[in-house]
């Protein structure tokens, strides 16, 4: 795409990876603040993923924006779970700490290989497909793990399995994070699509998603309220900003009734 990006993709990549991993690793510092930080890390990953979706779907996939979102979330979950499970291998049993990093790397590698398969065998002619599929898969893995870690309170596979896999919340995170990552561009696409506006919507979606995580945290007590309050405040602020940007970009705004009957050329 010829247009200049207001926010650099590499900067967003760094925000996504560093913010996401930081949130995941800081979950253990405090039973109150930890899950909130993990949720905020998940938002960083969601914004990163939304930017990657915007880049790749801007070329027109032919199958709709959600398709690549679902595919990459699926890759992210398989890659993420296998990365976390890797720490169960006896040779790596001392490296539970590295589980989320393994998860990120495996998801990105799987995303890259699937993108190569799609490009070489199926013949998709999108130049940024490799980079973006890899990025979205990584963002998907990080966001799902961040939300799972917020629920589990730890990042080893056994805790996550007990807190997220058995109750089936992982399927909820699959759809929730797909929506949060693919919806911003799907909603904003068009000739005057603007990166800042799309990413603002991604932030709003992220805060809305952590409200759901907050609801799931209710059995854990007060931390649930904290996450929901932060989520609601964040959502109101970011969504207001999104509405303001949309109004500024619109030719005119009418809240009700039909279009005005203007005769001017």
């Amino acid at each position, binding site marked *: 795409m010829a247009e200049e990006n207001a926010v650099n993709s590499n900067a967003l990549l760094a925000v996504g990876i560093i913010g996401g991993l930081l949130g995941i690793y800081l979950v253990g510092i405090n039973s109150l603040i930890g899950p909130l930080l993990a949720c905020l890390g998940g938002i960083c990953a969601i914004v990163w993923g939304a930017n990657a979706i915007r880049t790749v779907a801007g070329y027109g*996939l*032919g*199958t*709709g924006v*959600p*398709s*690549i*979102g*679902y*595919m990459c*979330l*699926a*890759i992210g*979950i*398989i*890659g993420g*779970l*296998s990365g976390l*499970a*890797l720490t*169960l*291998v006896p040779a790596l049993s001392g490296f539970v700490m590295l589980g989320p990093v393994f998860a990120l790397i*495996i998801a990105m590698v*799987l995303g890259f*290989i*699937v993108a190569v*398969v*799609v490009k070489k*065998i*199926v*013949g*998709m002619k999108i130049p940024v497909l490799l980079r973006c599929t890899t990025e979205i898969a990584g963002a998907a893995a990080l966001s799902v793990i961040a939300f799972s870690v917020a629920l589990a309170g730890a990042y080893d*596979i*056994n805790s996550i*399995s007990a807190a997220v*896999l*058995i109750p*089936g919340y*992982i*399927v909820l995170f*699959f759809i929730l994070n797909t929506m949060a990552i693919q919806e911003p561009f799907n909603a904003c696409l068009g000739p005057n699509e603007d990166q800042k506006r799309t990413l603002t919507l991604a932030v709003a979606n992220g805060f809305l998603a952590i409200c759901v995580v907050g609801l799931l945290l209710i059995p854990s007590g007060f931390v649930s309220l904290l996450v929901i309050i932060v989520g609601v405040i964040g959502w109101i602020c970011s969504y207001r900003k999104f509405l303001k940007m949309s109004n500024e970009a619109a030719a005119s705004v009418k809240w009700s009734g039909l279009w005005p009957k203007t005769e001017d050329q």
Partner: protein
Amino acid sequence: MLDPISLIIFIAVGGVLIGAGVHFIPVGGAPAAMATATGVGTGTAMLAAGAGMTGLVTAASMTGQPMILVVLAGAIGAMLMMGFTMLIANYIYVYGCGVVPASAKVDNDPITGRNQEIYCTPGTEGHGIPTVCFVSGIIGSLMGGAGGGLIYYVVNNAATNASFITTPIEAAALAAIIAISVYFINSVIASYNIGGTIEGFHDPKFKKIGRGFAACLIASILCAILCVLILGGI
């Protein structure tokens, strides 16, 4: 108990069944939503989610039964969901939009032999879901549902002795999420192969199935290897 090699083979077979099944399903995309193309008016990802997850629910209801029952249950669930989707979509097209189901890709319906061309509105790619597309969609969802059910069965079976799995319900949950993930990956790869929209087995695009087959096979084998890793089979 399944050894890792047969686990990989079964997941690859399931993945290829899903990928091949998508080629049969009449996916119309956005044009079909406006009744200007044949098929169900939504993308592959949505149809895969609907049919795949219903198939998974029915397959999971057969947990503990022999493989053939689980696979058949998955296939029937997906076929039912697909059948209802196409039937209700047809009602909306016929009674809501006022168009007759007609295919633009063939002159005569290969199954009923009825003429399609004269019913096709000029400037459109057909509309609604004619008989051949409906039958094709049922065949596709049979394959997809069976593939999903097969993956669910083998992962559930293998998960019962995975290192971090302690209860049968955990094995079922893990099997479900892996089956859904493999389902989505393969269905989206297949939909990239068909370029978004297809009418069914009579569509010229259906000839591309070989490439989709190869791509889904590679992707499924990769997923299967990671599944073995998740299950701690190495």
